């Protein structure tokens, strides 16, 4: 077993928030999804207080070894999520982390206290970093803003609070330290990098939301550097993600200082990628152990 902020997990592989809809996947793959569930902890799509339709299409653009998305956080809102989705997510064979985003402190307080009150919820991730929504960027890009929000939320629950960091901040290290000092239990990074694409014929922005977030192997080197830097800056666990597509990539993030890792865009290419990456990571760790034990003798 493996432990993340006091929550027992069968391993260190999570999904990035907003990159896997376990309820839709169960409709597509049936109960085989539960039998071979690809993650050790399931992170929900970000929930906001009010329901959201999300951005107008087109929402996707393929880049070299990556993807730009402009989804805009569509979700049922807190009430719809708790009533309809949470009971279904509770049937998953792994602990649940709920991701929330509020547009002010009052919204955040309501989201965190109501999510934390549900026993199905083991961890809460605070999405201060989604680049598609203006306010998300502002809160997560500034250490003072981050500290203020975490300070308000910390007394509301004993459950672990994870602050999702945006790579679009001037100093992610400073934001991570501010989160830690205000009482966050972990940080997770990176979220997508801000990007855009132009329509090949009109040269107008391609995405319905004008700009979007870049993910996939295209951002892996940047993510690895940020994880390396943030993990040195704080004592709390860092959950590392950004273009992880293999056990080798996952091992790199762990070597860079991450306590756990998350798989995002690679799941789009293979719904079972999380399980493959776990297996590859275990094989690699065994090889490393065998090598080190040999080296001692």
């Amino acid at each position, binding site marked *: 077993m493996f432990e993340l902020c006091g929550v027992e997990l069968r391993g260190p592989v999570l999904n990035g928030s907003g990159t896997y809809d376990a309820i839709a996947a169960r409709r*597509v793959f049936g109960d*085989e999804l539960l039998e071979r569930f690809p993650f050790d902890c399931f992170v929900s799509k970000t929930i906001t207080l009010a329901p959201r339709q999300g951005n107008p299409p087109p929402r996707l653009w393929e880049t070299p070894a990556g993807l730009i998305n402009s989804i805009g956080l569509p979700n049922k809102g807190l009430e719809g999520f708790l009533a309809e989705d949470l009971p279904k997510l509770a049937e998953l064979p792994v602990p649940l982390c709920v991701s929330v985003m509020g547009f002010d402190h009052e919204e955040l307080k309501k989201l965190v206290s109501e999510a934390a009150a549900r026993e199905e919820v083991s961890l809460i991730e605070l999405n201060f970093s989604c680049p598609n929504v203006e306010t998300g960027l502002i809160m997560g890009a500034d250490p003072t803003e981050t500290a203020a929000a975490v300070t308000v939320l910390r007394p509301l629950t004993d459950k672990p609070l994870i602050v999702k960091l945006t790579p679009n901040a001037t100093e992610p290290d400073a934001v991570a330290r501010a989160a830690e000092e205000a009482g966050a239990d972990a940080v997770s990074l990176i979220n997508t990098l801000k990007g855009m694409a132009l329509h090949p014929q009109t040269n107008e922005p391609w995405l319905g939301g004008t700009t979007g977030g870049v993910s996939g192997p295209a951002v892996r080197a940047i993510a690895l550097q940020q994880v390396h830097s943030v993990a040195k800056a704080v004592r709390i666990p860092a959950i590392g993600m950004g273009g992880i597509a293999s056990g080798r990539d996952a091992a790199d993030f762990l070597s860079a200082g991450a306590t756990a890792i998350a798989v995002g865009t690679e799941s*789009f290419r*293979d*719904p079972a990628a999380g399980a493959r990456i776990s297996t590859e990571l275990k094989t690699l760790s065994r090889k490393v152990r065998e090598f080190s034990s040999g080296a001692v003798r």
Partner: protein
Amino acid sequence: MTLAPFGRRLAPLAENRRIGAYQLLVVEDRDGPGDPQPGQFYMLASEERWGAGEGERPYLPRAFSFARAREGRLWFLLEDIGPGTHRLAELEPGEGLWLTGPLGIGFEASADQPILVGGGIGTAPLLCLQDQLGPDAPVLLGFRSAEHAQAAELFAGEPQIATDDGSIGRHALVTELLNEELDRRSAVGGRRSRVYACGPPPMLEAVRALCGEREVAAELALESGMACGFGACFGCVVPTKDGYIRLCVDGPVLQAQDLVPGGVGD
């Protein structure tokens, strides 16, 4: 709908044949279900060199409706128009394909009298639908030219053909053929008609508008850029009367009456 085995699986290409302007890929899918529902689709990527083409693309798998499922083999019809379709089109028999599926919700079974309407590469899912419904249902197909219209040879019986350039069949849009077919039907009377259509967005929009006007039920197989195909990325939404829905899990076949004007394209 038929459930998909979890994850992607490797399947060898059995055949890659040129049919006019299109490419027919036949894939040996021994590990997949033998009974996908017409209108369902698969995510496809090549095992090798997926991501080493022009501009270092393709990266994501590509969504294709299956054209036929027969004796453990899946047929896919595609047109080489971008980095993904280009890589798939050049594959040789024996090379590996990553396959996820069948995905999505296909055409509904119904007691109504069917009319199949296809445009271009969108004729693909109508082939397996014809296999299911039998050769008596009228098939109306629209293509750019005679070269593209060679795909009509895959159908049983004699499909009616319209082309944009008049090089074969009627020099008309396929919706004109549909309008005439509906006229014939209403003159004769009898069972209710149901239109099953797949094609480019302007054609589907015209079919939607025509069937709405004539109060004929229509099921439209839509297309949208997809990253995942199983509801994970929320990228493939289309507007409906109930707001945006994900085409991959709530479609790709939608009831025309649920769509908003212009919602399938223009």
